[in-house]
């Protein structure tokens, strides 16, 4: 029985297989299956939606009849997201709207696409093409790894566990490679210090046996030679041994200093290169990446994930080596000295392993809880201090104090309670190790008393020292898997950046050069997630030098027009031409250099005013910058600042007002002297006087340049010689202001509304006077 269906998001539930067979028998082919997780009652169940070329079949759990709808019978197929669940519904011939599939958000993106699939096929879309689009959606919708079931970083990402480890190591090894010679030196030094560390217990053992007591033969021939040379004088022997110890210590710690210095150098250089690369890569990532990934997460990846990864790489290359050699060294020496006692002193090791595992598993959640309380204390801080003006103006001081004290109190309670356990654990582990020495004391001691062959007080002292040295390597290896997990998570996040596709750059791209500024949109369509078209078949032409106002409600698609023109997003259908060239063929930096973009909320870097303006044209002369500021009506207020052009703007440009910032960002645009200017709600957030200054600046700036202005306030558009009205992703009106007023369409309505409010304001103002 072949029920193989290639395109599915999960295994098709068994109950649905009869339906698959029935479909096959009727001569149709199942194109794809969406396996769902809710039945129509909203209970968890394995359900399915089976799509053929003409029909969709439902499977809503084994107790229900399967339903079947022909695409041709369905109208207005919609996927509706509710709260925690979503539905697919369609209008049926009897006029009712039927919900035929219910699901949680986990597969919502698939169902969104399926709704479009039915709509497109119903309206005569190409079946193969639509199926291919579904195939891509299936691939992108995978939020868990199909092989191991692990949740992916984001839907469609590659699973770090199931990737070839070799490739990952190869990717990361690039950063370690330059440091390999240094690391090799470090390893050699590490081994040296490790062996140095093994010497002192042997010497102390000798001192106990042959300096304090005068038995004849020691277990080390080397020490016997020294003893002979010194004529067996215990005083001299003691001094010699102490000198030996001193020498070993000097060597051990001396090498240690060099080693940790070199280690740090290698580690710093690795993380330096890694961080640089991640940051560089981030700058060139397309806007889509930033839509998907929060800026906080990106910052974290550059700042802390790289460090986590570096730590791990160093642990593997360095500490693992050291600990391994130390463990081997200790066992070899101990075995050579006394095999039986070695085995006895190894008894606590399994306990230590179990204990450290237990310890790290138990203790981590405790620390986590303390940390969680602590971060809620901190968040109260960072919530209220920046809002201090609000707190004071509504006399909320006492309330915020109360809130803070409550949080702090919760922290204290949990910290005191858990602190007890948290501090007990390491002590218990040490206790177990110490107990190991009791075995050596007991067993070895009794042998020494009875004068058994090969046992001496010195031997026991040596053994106890060695046994305590065993703990570090053991706990290191016992906890290695944790740091491995942490490193893997960091690696995943870092590779997500390093391997992301940067903004596409066609080969044979041409320099944009100086553009005339003719803009053509030809049947441009765009959607972020396929579920809703943000732009739908947009076509218009803007001649060089025209000033065009783009009008529309929020969410109508105005800003998307600009985003596409700026090439922030490339995945649109249709073509956008500038000066007759497809903008995708332009070399991206040279193209963007021709567009001056003034945003609604101008962002300032924390740098001087001069550098903030000059950001648009590196290496601009002082006079150019001053001139640009002058054109932007900014020179006046800058000159009035005590530090003038050297005024340092804080984060997000504190220190200057919103309108002043806006003029600085216009100065930026002036300085770069672009061929195309875009104002995205540039005067939305300023008062009328500032708006006049900004308008004045804009008027000077747009001379002879193709200008696009997005505006809510129609007064901003008085210079426009053409208005484009966008609604629901479509252009509904396009013409000169006079034409549109005559047409009495949407633009006319907007003007009516706004002039009414303006008049009302005027009247109010007059009354006040």
């Amino acid at each position, binding site marked *: 029985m072949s029920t193989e269906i290639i395109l599915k998001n999960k295994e098709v539930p068994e109950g649905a297989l009869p339906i698959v067979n029935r479909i096959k028998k009727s001569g149709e082919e199942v194109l794809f299956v969406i396996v769902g997780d809710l039945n129509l009652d*909203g209970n*968890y169940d394995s359900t399915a939606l089976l799509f053929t070329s003409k029909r969709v079949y439902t499977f809503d759990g084994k107790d229900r009849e399967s339903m079947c709808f022909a695409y041709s019978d369905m109208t207005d197929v919609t996927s509706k997201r*509710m*709260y925690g669940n979503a539905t697919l519904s369609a209008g049926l011939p009897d006029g009712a709207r039927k919900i035929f599939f219910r699901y*949680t958000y986990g597969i919502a993106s698939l169902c969104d696409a399926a709704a479009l699939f039915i709509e497109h096929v119903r309206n005569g879309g190409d079946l193969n093409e639509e199926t291919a689009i579904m195939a891509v959606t299936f691939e992108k919708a995978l939020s868990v790894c199909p092989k191991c079931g692990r*949740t992916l970083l984001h839907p469609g990402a590659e699973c770090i566990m199931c990737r070839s480890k070799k490739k990952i190591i190869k990717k990361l090894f690039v950063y370690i490679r330059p440091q390999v010679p240094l690391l090799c030196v470090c390893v050699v030094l590490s081994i040296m210090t490790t062996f140095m560390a093994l010497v002192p217990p042997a010497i102390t053992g000798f001192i106990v046996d042959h300096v304090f007591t005068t038995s004849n033969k020691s277990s080390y021939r080397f020490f016997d030679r020294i003893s002979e040379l010194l004529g067996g004088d215990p005083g001299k022997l003691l001094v010699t041994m102490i000198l030996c110890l001193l020498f070993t210590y000097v060597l051990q710690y001396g090498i240690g200093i060099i080693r940790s210095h070199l280690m740090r150098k290698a580690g710093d250089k690795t993380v330096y290169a890694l961080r640089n690369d991640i940051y560089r890569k981030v700058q060139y990532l397309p806007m889509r990446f930033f839509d998907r990934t929060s800026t906080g997460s990106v910052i974290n990846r550059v700042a802390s994930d790289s460090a986590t990864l570096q730590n791990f790489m160093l642990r593997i290359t360095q500490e693992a080596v050291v600990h391994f050699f130390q463990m081997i060294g200790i066992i070899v020496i101990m075995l050579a000295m006394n095999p039986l006692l070695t085995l006895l002193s190894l008894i606590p090791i399994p306990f230590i392993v179990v204990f450290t595992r237990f310890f790290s598993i138990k203790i981590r959640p405790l620390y986590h809880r303390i940390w969680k309380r602590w971060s809620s204390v901190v968040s109260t801080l960072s919530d209220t201090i920046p809002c201090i003006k609000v707190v004071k103006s509504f006399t909320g001081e006492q309330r915020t104090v109360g809130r803070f004290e409550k949080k702090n109190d919760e922290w204290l309670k949990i910290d005191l309670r858990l602190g007890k356990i948290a501090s007990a654990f390491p002590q218990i582990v040490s206790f177990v190790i110490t107990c190991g020495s009791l075995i050596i004391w007991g067993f070895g001691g009794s042998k020494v008393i009875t004068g058994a062959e090969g046992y001496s007080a010195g031997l026991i002292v040596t053994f106890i020292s060695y046994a305590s040295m065993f703990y570090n390597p053991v706990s290191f290896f016992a906890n290695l898997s944790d740091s491995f997990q942490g490193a893997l998570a960091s690696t995943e996040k870092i590779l997500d950046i390093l391997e992301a596709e940067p903004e596409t750059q066609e080969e044979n791209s041409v320099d944009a050069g100086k553009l005339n500024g003719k803009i053509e949109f030809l049947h441009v369509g765009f959607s972020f997630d396929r579920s809703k078209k943000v732009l739908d078949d947009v076509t218009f032409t803007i001649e060089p030098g025209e000033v065009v106002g783009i009008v529309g409600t929020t969410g109508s698609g105005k800003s998307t027009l600009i985003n596409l023109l700026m090439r922030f997003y490339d995945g649109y259908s249709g073509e956008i031409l500038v000066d007759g060239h497809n903008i995708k063929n332009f070399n991206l930096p040279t193209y963007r250099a021709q567009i001056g973009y003034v945003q609604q909320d101008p962002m300032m870097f924390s740098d001087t005013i001069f550098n903030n303006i000059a950001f648009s044209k590196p290496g601009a002369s002082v006079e150019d910058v001053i001139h640009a500021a002058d054109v932007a009506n900014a020179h006046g207020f800058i000159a009035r600042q005590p530090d003038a052009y050297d005024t340092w703007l804080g984060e997000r440009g504190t220190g200057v007002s919103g309108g002043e910032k806006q003029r600085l960002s216009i100065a930026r645009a002036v300085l770069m002297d672009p061929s195309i200017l875009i104002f995205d709600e540039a005067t939305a957030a300023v008062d009328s006087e500032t708006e006049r200054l900004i308008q004045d600046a804009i008027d000077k700036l747009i001379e002879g340049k193709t200008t696009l202005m997005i505006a809510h306030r129609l007064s901003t558009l008085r210079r426009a010689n053409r208005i484009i009205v966008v609604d629901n992703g479509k252009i509904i009106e396009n013409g000169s202001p006079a034409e549109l007023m005559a047409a009495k369409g949407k633009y006319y309505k907007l003007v009516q509304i706004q002039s009414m409010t303006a008049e009302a304001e005027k009247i109010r103002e007059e009354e006040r006077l």
Partner: protein
Amino acid sequence: MERIYLTSEDRIELFENNLVTVTLADGRTFEELEPRRLFPVNMPEKYITLLDKDGVEQCVIRDTGELNSSSSDIIRKSLNDYYLVPEILRIVNVSDKYGILRWEVDTDRGRKSFDIRNRNHDIRVSADCSIRVRDSDDNRYVISDYRMLDTKSRKLLNTEL
């Protein structure tokens, strides 16, 4: 415009699926309204807004208990369709791999396992001992009182509180 608060005098009938038709005592009717909670977390049965096709509020219910019984039944059913917040009755298993928590739970809607990406933001404990959980797909779950869970569930939960 004055906000219309519905009373027991007004009639609510099912329109289609989760949509309702409201007939006011004075005879005015609104069709195809979608009941939505204004406080889905803190007051699920109070302050229900009724939005028309364009998402514009037409009327508000202060408390579903203030309506006549047939109306409140319809509203509750509609809300239950719209808001799917399974109640977690038992936690079967919690595992933590690479910083992502995976919970397997028994809910009033059946068994489900899901991932929690950010345990700090996605598990919220309220003062009344209820817990709201958000999974990696943005589905919501609720534990109405964690003290009422069985010992094993509480133990599994404990590490996350």
